[in-house]
């Protein structure tokens, strides 16, 4: 009987080995392990065996049975995996076809630049203030030390609505308004971005509407070297650590001393090229120490408080940073232009 069992085991394992489908396996299972199968038959004939032999053969028969069952399971798993592979193979798609389109919008380049500037100054403890685009003559000019008849009013011919109302020519009135709000008794540390308007005929470098970001810091004991430090840190973050900056004396009615800030030309690295008009430097902003008259008009005692102010044009910065060659691009809303600057951030 032993021999018969071993024979059966060999025979069954061989058939399992050869089986290639799940139904083959099922047949084998029925044939060898089923109630009418040969192993059951062997077990039935155990009655003829001696007392001693019975458990030995019984154990052997169970082992054979388990061995076959195990092999069947292993083989089944193998065949199932193979069948799944085959099924998945048939499900293959053309992954080079395009995905279902999703509309993607994005910010205007000017908004990106302004936000970048805002975030840099927020990091240095500045708040952001806004103000009206239609201003009074007082806030646009007089509060900024530009009384009626001042020659510097020529510098910025304006769009007047009435004798007293105009489209603001700079965002500086927001500075005067903020100081007025703080009533001369607390420090002011703010920037004011916004639209401004001047009587210019639109061409490649002029626009009757453009953007400005101005900043103001008023406190006790503000030094001109602070202005230099803040602007330096701002410019390096915006334009890159490798840019050099320099300040030149200049003139604005609302600051004294006044400065203009240049950065070293990126195109030629300061050697001189057509972009920087052979000077190696590109002007990017103006500023200075707040004129005592401006402080006084806003209710700050210039003997106690002083400060610095600065202003810059995001269009110009965008033109320098990205090589935009015509200021009218910013207002034509040509989708081909706008899309170039939708950064995936």
């Amino acid at each position: 009987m032993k021999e018969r069992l071993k024979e059966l085991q060999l025979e069954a394992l061989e058939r399992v080995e050869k089986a290639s489908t799940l139904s083959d396996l099922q047949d084998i299972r029925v044939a060898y392990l089923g109630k009418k199968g040969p192993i059951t038959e062997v077990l039935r004939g155990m009655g003829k065996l001696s007392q001693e032999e019975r458990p030995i053969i019984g154990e052997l028969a169970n082992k054979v049975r388990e061995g076959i069952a195990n092999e069947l399971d292993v083989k089944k798993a193998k065949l199932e995996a193979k069948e799944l592979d085959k099924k998945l193979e048939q499900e293959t798609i053309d992954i080079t076809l395009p995905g279902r389109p999703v509309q993607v919008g994005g910010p205007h380049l000017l908004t990106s630049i302004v936000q970048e500037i805002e975030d840099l100054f927020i990091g240095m403890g500045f708040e952001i203030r806004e103000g009206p685009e239609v201003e009074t003559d007082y806030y646009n000019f007089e509060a900024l030390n530009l009384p009626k008849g001042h020659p510097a009013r020529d510098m910025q011919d304006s769009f007047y609505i009435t004798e007293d109302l105009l489209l603001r020519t700079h965002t500086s009135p927001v500075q005067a308004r903020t100081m007025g709000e703080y009533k001369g008794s607390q420090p002011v540390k703010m920037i004011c971005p916004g639209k401004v308007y001047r009587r210019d005929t639109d061409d490649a470098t002029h626009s009757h509407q453009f953007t400005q970001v101005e900043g103001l810091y008023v406190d006790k004991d503000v030094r001109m070297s602070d202005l230099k430090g803040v602007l330096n840190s701002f410019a390096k973050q915006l334009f890159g650590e490798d840019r050099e900056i320099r300040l030149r004396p200049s003139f604005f009615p609302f600051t004294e001393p006044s400065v203009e800030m240049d950065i070293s030309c990126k195109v030629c690295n300061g050697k001189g090229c057509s972009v920087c008009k052979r000077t190696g430097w590109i002007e990017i902003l103006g500023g200075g120490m707040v004129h005592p008259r401006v402080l006084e008009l806003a209710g700050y005692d210039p003997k106690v408080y002083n400060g610095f102010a600065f202003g810059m044009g995001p269009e110009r910065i965008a033109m320098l940073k990205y090589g935009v060659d015509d200021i009218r691009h910013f207002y034509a809303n040509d989708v081909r232009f706008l899309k170039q600057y939708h950064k995936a951030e």
Partner: protein
Amino acid sequence: MFVSLNWLRNYVDIENITPEELAEKITKTGIEVEGIEYIADQSSNVVVGFVNECEKHPNADKLNLCQVDVGDEVLQIICGAPNIAQGQKVAVAKPGAVLPGNFKIKKAKLRGVESNGMICSLQELGIEEKYVPKDVAEGIFVFPEESEVGVNALQLLNLDDAILELGLTPNRSDALSMLGVAYEVSAILDVPIRLPEEGVETGTEKASDYVSIKVEDPDLNPYYGAFVVKDIQIGPSPLWIRNYLMAAGIRPINNVVDITNYVLLEYGQPLHAFDFDQFGSKEIVVRRAHDGEKMITLDDEERTLKSDHLVITNGQQPTALAGVMGGANSEVSDQTTTVLLEAAYFAPSAVRTSSKDHGLRSESSTRFEKGVDPNRVKRAGLRAAQLLTKYANGTLLSGIVEFDQLDKSEVEVNIQTNKINNRLGTEISKETIADILRKLNFNYDQDGDDFTIHVPTRRQDITIFEDMIEEVARIYGYDNLPYTLPQGASQAGGLTNQQQLKRNVKNYFESAGLMEAITYSLTTKQRANLLISPEIKSKAEVPVALAMPMSEEHSTLRLSILPEMLDSLAYNIARKQPNLGYYEVGTVFVSEQKIVTEQPEEKLRATGAVTGEWISHPWQQEKRVVDFFLVKGIVEGLFRKLNLSVEYKQVKIDGMHPGRTAQIYLQERPIGFLGQVHPKLQKDYDLKDTYVFDIDLDYIFELHDIEPSFLKIPRYPSISRDIALVVKEEVYAGAIQSTIEEAGGSLVKEVQVFDVYQGEHLAKGTKSIAFNILYLDPEKTLKDEEVEKSYQAILSAVQDVHQAELRG
């Protein structure tokens, strides 16, 4: 201001510095040098030649064959200039010379005759046409007889010069003169300055016998000096004066005019020369013009005057518009023999008004407008008189006839060493400050660390302590200031809630597929009246208009962003970009006044427009053309994001499709609209179907609370029920939805339309709308009976209110 460096050399020593280095130093010290121009950059080998012989070319009518002595040889040169003649001294470009424009001179044969060089006009040597004296504009330039043959002609013409173009800020009018620039360069380079002499011999006759002065308004004319110069011989001015004028951009005319212009440039003091014999009287009266009074100025224009304009008169008629332009009646001409020379101080405001009203900006008016140096007025007159006696053969009569109430005193400014350092963040010593003042040529008294500065009157821009800080800082060098950071108490910067919300709203639109546009705030009058949201229209009487627009195109402030945004769509479509989705967040300008006297209210709007295909080139699905529900979906998304619930009501708005426009209400208040642009307007703009929205952001920001408050996540499951109703076509889904929400009770969490059907399976004139109703009890597990009760209530309510029937 154009500064000839050869001219500047007369006053300061600049031999050891290149024009580029000098320009860099001037720029860094405060006056921007905008350009350096070398007139005769490439010219060489051009000398003075004497025309020995001049005959007609044997083979050409218009050419002359000349033998020209150039010192070391005689060259045969063919010349086509009409004014060439034997005996002239001319500029000869010898073979090998290179003229401006890289024009190389070579030996050549012209009509069979050899020519060894070229006789040059001033234009050919690099002088701009407009500065070339009229008498030689059509031909070659002729040197004065005394010129030496064979010398470098370019040097003689000052064409070896470099010219700095200064971009002057309004405060630095002191540098509108060669002396002013010389003072600046003297301070920068620390070299001494040499001032011109003004000494002049006078004749025996007294000027006061010829003329008297009466000034009616001393505030406007605190100084008037009259110099009488007799025996004048009008002719060309000396070559060096002509050269300097051309370098500075002024065309030479004759000796008298050239000398007044020369002194204007040298001293920064405008002068005027009258022909004394044509002046019309012996009395100079300076007064305000009479309203409506007329005069003809030098440019032959008739000017109508007002009492704001200051005039010089002969007691009867105006002879000059003070500080701006002389009168034609007393103009210096070739016949002039006696010159009445005016050196005066006119108030800046008076000159500015005249210049502005008559659209006349001259070298004179720009200087008077900024305020000339009170201590240089008379000196400039003397300098001109001196040059007239020297170069126009004149005789100055003794005694200057003058009216003088001019304040010539110097302003005093006190500075303290420590205060300077506190403001600049520096540690400059008092010795360094003293040295800076010396370089600037400022007089001062020093008491230890304190200085009292007597500011020279040429520097009208310095009046207060801060002005002196700048002077010290710029000579010390802005480059030498340290970099520091503010030492005040630090505060946290940041965005306000509204600013953060504005950014969030913009981000939302971008994630919804729209691109940000920025359009002009100024539009046309016609467009300013289009597509205005009802809540704006009910407030704004009329759009706010500019008093004096530059063009109709940008004449009126917008009441809606849409008209210009539609223009941007059209702009792109014309460039073959037909599929567009834009938004803009910006202000519109609302005034409740018919005649605007107060600042308009500036309302923040979120506006958008879509046109064309929303999804193009899909390979799996139908392409989607924009429609009402696309825009509504975008708008709904915004309010979901802001956690605000709004209602939509049908509305009619000018410029919008009457059946496809919805007004948006937030808490009963109208806050904007959305819908399709009226097909007629679409056609005007050349647009296909275009859908837009326009929303009031101010009110939204007012209501919206940016901090999200925590809502418990429901622990119990929800139950969902569908209900399909058949109603008449004209019943609005929104109305049924409201009924369902109302009738369903507090357990109804959400109601959503999921299907709308109209067609063969339904009776004509009806439609079916299917809703999904979500029930939730946050406190316990829902029971079927509760849901069923609510469902029945809903059913009977929609049957009552909308005659709806359950769809079988």
